[in-house]
């Protein structure tokens, strides 16, 4: 009814508005046609419209007020209605409340009983709690002990790590030393090689020395022999001197011999010649005799005295030549005799010499070796002295021969001195460079120089400051560590010692308290939830006759209260679409008929479950 009024009001308003707005466009059109008179008309119209508007407005207002009044009345009615309703409701509620109250009183009694029970259980639990707390404390102590042991272990670990580091460093050092020692080793080995080479050279030298020694000994032996020979020869010389005088004649005798031989030969030749002459003469003689005879015969005939003269001359010559030949023969014989005598003498002399030699050798061989060696050594020394003298003499001779070789000696000396000078100069320059280097580096002679510095110098001041800084930092670190430990200890216990001067500890404690209270709340809520859920489940079991357990995700196992065996259970799985499906179990195989009827045919799980319950119940009661 009111709504209809409203709509009529609004409809009239709308029609009024449209009415107002309509004349405007025709007015505007007519303005152009009749401007002056139209204005008056317009004004009148507008005035009429205004009055109409006012009237409408007042009507509107009246309608509105009316409406309001109606609404008020309605609301009054409603309020009265509601109040009556409320009164009735409250009466009902009151009755209900009274019932409830009674119920609640009963409940309260029950709850009080329960409370007593729960108080008992709580006391028991408190005692259990205390026991648990004691266990906890024991466990915490153990934990602390273990923590301490862990800490000690950590410390030992850190100490061991430090040790390991140190050992590693030591190892590195030792490696370094080992490497240096291997280097030294190598150097020493090289030196060894050098030494070995030197040794080899030295051994070679030794061998050469030995060979030289052997050759020396051989030479010594030779020298001995030569000395022996010398001695013998001296003796021979003595012998020879005595024999010389006798033998001096030998050349004369040889000469005589030669002369004699020559004479002999000459004489032989002469004799041969003479013989030939003799033969010739004989032949001549014969001829002569023949001629003679002839002559004789002739001269006998002619002259006999001339032949006689020639014959006598020839006979005289013959006699002379015969005498000559005889003399030469005698000479030859005498010279032959001389030669024989001389040969005999020579033989005798040689025999005497051999004899003397043998005597001497026998003497030498008879002499003892101890008496022999000093002589030998003396002879050796003398021989050596002689050798040396000869050598020096030889050298002098050479020197004397080479009159120009005096200067090379000086030259050699000069060269040696120059080489030494260069070496010394190099050493000098090296030492000067070293000195300069040391001087640049700041070396000084402690005997002549001392190094001073100001006591309060910037470096020592800076070092002191650093030291102080380090010490203060160390103190701060120690202090912070202690504070940290105290904070950690304060967190474990509930009653904190607020003597620490740090402002953050109170915040910490507050937060800890909040945490503990929230944890307690959590615990209580868990307990309440557990209790409620347990209650609900037992009620379900009692009322429906099935115990529903959740085995895995979306799988539910139902066990009947009237189950014949403990394992008899039905397994339901929640599918992806949300529908429950029966899974096959040992027990469900025995219920094939009911499955077929209730699930496949009727498609009702509650019917199936109730059928199973009734069946089992009937079995139980029947048995």
């Amino acid at each position: 009814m009111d709504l209809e009024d409203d709509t009529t009001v609004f409809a009239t308003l709308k029609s009024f508005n449209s009415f107002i707005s309509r004349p405007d466009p025709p007015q505007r059109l007519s303005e152009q046609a009749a401007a002056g008179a139209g204005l008056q008309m317009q004004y009148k119209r507008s005035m009429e419209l205004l009055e109409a508007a006012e009237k409408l407005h007042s009507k509107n207002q009246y309608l509105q007020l009316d409406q309001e009044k109606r609404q008020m009345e309605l609301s009054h009615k409603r309020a009265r209605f509601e109040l009556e309703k409320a009164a009735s409701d409250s009466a009902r509620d009151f009755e209900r409340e009274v019932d409830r109250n009674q119920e609640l009183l009963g409940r309260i009694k029950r709850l009080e009983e329960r409370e007593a029970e729960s108080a008992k259980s709580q006391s028991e639990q408190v005692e259990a709690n205390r026991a648990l707390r004691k266990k906890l404390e024991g466990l915490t102590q153990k934990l602390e002990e273990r923590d301490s042991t862990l800490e000690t272990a950590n410390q030992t670990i850190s100490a061991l790590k430090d040790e390991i580091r140190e050992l590693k460093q030591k190892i590195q050092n030792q490696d370094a030393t080992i490497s240096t020692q291997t280097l030294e080793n190598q150097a020493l080995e090289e030196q060894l090689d050098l030494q070995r080479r030197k040794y080899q050279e030295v051994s070679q030298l030794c061998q050469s020395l030995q060979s030289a020694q052997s050759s020396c000994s051989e030479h010594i032996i030779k020298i001995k022999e030569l000395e022996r020979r010398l001695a013998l020869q001296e003796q021979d010389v003595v012998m020879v001197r005595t024999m010389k005088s006798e033998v001096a004649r030998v050349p004369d005798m040889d000469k005589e011999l030669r002369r004699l031989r020559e004479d002999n030969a000459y004489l032989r030749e002469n004799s041969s010649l003479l013989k030939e002459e003799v033969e010739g003469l004989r032949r001549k003689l014969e001829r002569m005799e023949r001629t003679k005879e002839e002559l004789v015969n002739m001269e006998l005939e002619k002259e006999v005295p001339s032949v006689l003269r020639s014959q006598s001359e020839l006979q005289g010559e013959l006699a002379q030549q015969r005498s000559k030949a005889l003399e030469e023969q005698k000479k030859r014989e005498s010279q032959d005799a001389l030669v024989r005598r001389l040969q005999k003498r020579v033989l005798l002399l040689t025999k005497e010499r051999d004899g003397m030699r043998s005597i001497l050798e026998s003497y030498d061989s008879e002499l003892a070796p101890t008496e022999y060696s000093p002589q030998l050594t003396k002879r050796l020394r003398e021989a050596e002295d002689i050798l040396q003298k000869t050598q020096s003499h030889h050298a002098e001779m050479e020197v004397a021969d080479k009159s120009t070789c005096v200067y090379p000696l000086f030259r050699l000396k000069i060269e040696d001195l120059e080489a030494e000078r260069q070496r010394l100069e190099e050493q000098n320059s090296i030492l000067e460079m070293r000195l300069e280097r040391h001087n640049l580096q700041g070396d000084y002679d402690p005997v002549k120089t001392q190094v001073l510095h100001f006591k309060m110098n910037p470096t020592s001041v800076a070092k002191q400051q650093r030291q102080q800084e380090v010490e203060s930092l160390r103190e701060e670190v120690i202090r912070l560590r202690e504070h940290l430990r105290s904070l950690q200890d304060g967190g474990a216990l509930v009653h904190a010692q607020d003597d620490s001067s740090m402002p953050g500890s109170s915040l910490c404690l507050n937060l800890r308290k909040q945490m503990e209270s929230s944890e307690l709340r959590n615990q209580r809520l868990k307990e309440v939830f557990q209790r409620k859920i347990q209650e609900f489940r037992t009620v379900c079991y009692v009322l429906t006759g099935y115990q529903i357990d959740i085995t895995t995700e979306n799988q539910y196992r139902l066990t009947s209260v009237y189950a014949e065996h403990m394992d008899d259970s039905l397994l339901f799985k929640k599918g992806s679409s949300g529908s429950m499906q029966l899974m096959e179990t040992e027990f469900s195989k025995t219920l094939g008929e009911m499955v077929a009827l209730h699930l496949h045919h009727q498609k009702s799980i509650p019917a199936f479950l109730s059928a199973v319950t009734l069946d089992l119940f009937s079995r139980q009661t029947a048995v």
Partner: protein
Amino acid sequence: MTSTLKGITLKGSAELVAEFFSFGINSILYQRGIYPPETFTRVTQYDMSLQLTTDVKLKNYLTNVVSQLKEWLFECTVQKLVLVITCLETNEVLERWQFDIECDKSAKESSAPREKSIKTIQDEIRSVIRQITATVTFLPLLESACSFDLLVYTDKDLVVPDRWEESGPQIISQSEEVRLRSFTTSIHKVNSMVAYKKTDSV
């Protein structure tokens, strides 16, 4: 500045050399960055602009050392002045600026001033300080915080003054040395050299 219009006396020479050391040490400290550059102020000396420290403690220290050094220069008992730069973290000596002083002891007895113009001496000092500035180009960088010390090599029989003590020579192990210019006042001859620690990167 000493009044050396007539020549160099022993006292004047000692003053000149002490002044050179004062400015030279300041230059080295500035160039090597031992102290921050903002603690230095520019001054003019030897016809060139040099840096002088404004740090009070450092100034006191330098004044103490240089005044004592002046005495020793006058007595001709000082042999070397060494500026040692040490790394504070490793306590290793990184650089050594060494100034050898050869004193003509005959100047003590004669006390007649020597003929050498101040200008020549100043030119020589200027070239030495220029060379010191130039050596910074090849010296290795001092990367860590460093501090310095001044050592004085004196004759052995010298009495150690009150606030001084004996020290080691602070020689660098494995160093490279460079000899720099020298200058002479005709009584004192100062040879400069620098030794620095060889860097491993070479």
